[in-house]
């Protein structure tokens, strides 16, 4: 187990001496607390796999350092770092039995068989692989194989960090949540630092205590699932997390007041001057019909079970709101209001007065 520190880490797949190159990972400082359950969330191509491969040692960062408990491991091999990684597609050694698969990392390190056996049995019990130990690994289903990868990761007693790279991609939907809660439960029991990489917000929010949201090679917000939902530090986070995502509307600033299409709106973080692009963000959960306010027309209603998603248009801008089941939806011309304290201003994407830059 270890605390992982990333110091001014940056990476490019091009030659940085050629000047202006594209960075897969922009300079980044990050601390992963010992024993935490983290998720790395972001769209495809945002650099999360790059970051993962750098931490596991499969990739050497162009700049910066990685520290495990304060010890610099930047130049250490994956093996020497004592980490485990579960890949998107199950990796098992086909010709070996499930038992031999789990024992493989220990045998490679020259552990005596007498010590291996109890260790393998313990981990097999934890991952519910005990009944299949004698079977050939190639005969298992995809979720069984992912469990083997996971068990191979956990079997080393001194493993510093377990990383998951979108591990549920090839798992059947009905097994996904079983395996996901299993992972969560495993983490509670073994308390190893775990990092879960995914582009699926449900997976990230249910697994992790802390979610790191990435976009275009940089970290946009680190927070608990509740923080990400209630106080998105960047319009990207607001948009990416939540279903449907946050409404983002252009506003003008006039004497410290925020105006949307000429109408004043009350915001949680007013600013004095309009500098850069100012936008207003409000989640559909906090928009409601009101007697007066922003005039809008309803363009569509989608039933999502316990609530309905209502699509409206106001002066050419789309505003979504959620209406609880059973509540009436007025006919076309309506007025909208925002819940007090839940509409926030963003400058160039970043929350004004927030922890971001």
């Amino acid at each position, binding site marked *: 187990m270890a605390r992982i520190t990333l110091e001014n880490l940056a990476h490019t797949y091009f030659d940085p001496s050629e000047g202006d190159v594209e960075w897969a990972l922009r300079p980044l400082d990050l601390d992963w607390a010992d024993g935490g359950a983290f998720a790395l969330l972001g769209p495809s191509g945002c650099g999360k796999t790059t970051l993962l491969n750098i931490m596991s040692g*499969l990739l050497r960062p162009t700049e910066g350092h990685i520290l495990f408990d304060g010890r610099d491991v930047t130049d250490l091999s994956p093996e020497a770092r004592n980490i485990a990684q579960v890949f998107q*597609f199950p*990796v098992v050694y086909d*010709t070996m039995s499930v038992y031999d698969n789990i024992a*493989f990392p220990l045998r490679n390190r020259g552990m005596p068989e007498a010590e291996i056996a109890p260790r393998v049995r313990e981990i097999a019990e934890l991952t519910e692989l005990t009944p299949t130990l004698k079977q050939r690994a190639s005969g298992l289903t995809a979720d069984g194989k992912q469990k083997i990868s996971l068990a191979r990761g956990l079997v080393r007693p001194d493993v510093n960090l377990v990383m998951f790279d979108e591990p549920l991609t090839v798992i059947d939907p009905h097994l996904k949540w079983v395996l996901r809660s299993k992972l969560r439960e495993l983490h509670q029991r073994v308390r190893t630092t775990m990092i879960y990489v995914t582009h699926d917000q449900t997976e990230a929010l249910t697994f992790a205590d802390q979610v790191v949201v990435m976009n275009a090679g940089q970290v946009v917000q680190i927070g608990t699932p509740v923080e990400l939902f209630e106080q998105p530090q960047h319009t990207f986070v607001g948009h990416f997390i939540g279903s449907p995502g946050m409404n983002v509307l252009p506003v003008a600033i006039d004497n410290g007041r925020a105006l949307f299409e000429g109408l004043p709106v009350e915001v949680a973080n007013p600013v004095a001057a309009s500098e850069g692009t100012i936008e207003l963000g409000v989640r559909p959960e906090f928009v409601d019909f009101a007697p007066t306010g922003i005039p809008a027309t309803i363009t569509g209603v989608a039933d999502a079970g316990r609530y309905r998603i209502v699509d409206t248009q106001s002066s050419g801008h789309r505003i979504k709101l959620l209406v609880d089941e059973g509540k009436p939806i007025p006919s076309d011309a309506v007025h909208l209001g925002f819940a007090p304290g839940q509409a926030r201003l963003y400058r160039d994407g970043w929350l004004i007065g927030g922890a971001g830059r």
Partner: protein
Amino acid sequence: MNKTADNRAWFLVIPVVALVAFNALIPLMTVVNYSVQETFGDNTFFWSGVTWFEQVLRDPRFHGALGRQLFFTGTILLIEIPLGVAIALTMPRRGPWVSVCLVLMALPLLIPWNVVGAMWNIMALPDIGLLGHTLNSLGIDYNYTRQPVSAWVTLIAMDVWHWTSLVVLLAYAGLVSIPEAYYQAAKIDGARPWAVFRYIQLPKMKRVLTIAVLLRFMDSFMIYTEVSVLTGGGPGSSTTLLSIDLVKTALGQFDLGPAAATSIVYFLIVLAISWVFYTLMMRNEES
């Protein structure tokens, strides 16, 4: 969808039945015909039953040819399969050199078989051939037209040169199909190169290697052209493999009955060994 039986559909398979009949069935039956009859020319035949088969199976000449054939095939398999895998392992997986390597590897396979025989024949000539002359000037007594050992060494070298590429290409195809994640996982699990080969690369290549062994077995067991051009079965009968022996019987001595019987026995041996190979390897795969 319901399937309806319509016997007119049989007409559709007539072309392929006719084709197979003409290029396989009819020639094969002709051979069977010769193998159970005696002929004295002028198209008169007498039933002779299994006489020819008994004669062939007891003939020390046939035993000799079969033994040499088994030795040849066994030797080239033992050399070509490991060598092919070893070469495939050293080939680059990506980058500009991939196509260069592939073309170089494919070259020997593109050369007509009799040309391969002729090339090695000339190259191995003890007095003027590059190989033959070099060996002799190094003080090695080498003459493939007079010494059986020299002839065998040349024969095996020629086959290895000609056919190892096939094993390389098949093994390489198996290697490049292994996802990168396997190598990454192996690195993280601390696997040594030998373990990576033994537990990742070899199992993933198994299927293509099965095909490689089968193809090389069948082809080498039926080899004729290169040997015929290189040594013609000599010196003496030291490199007379089954096919060479068969041609000598059939076209040299015009013993049609024994030749036909030999052909059928030869065919059955190839079929039986291929079947055993295949079954063993597939059973291995399933368990």
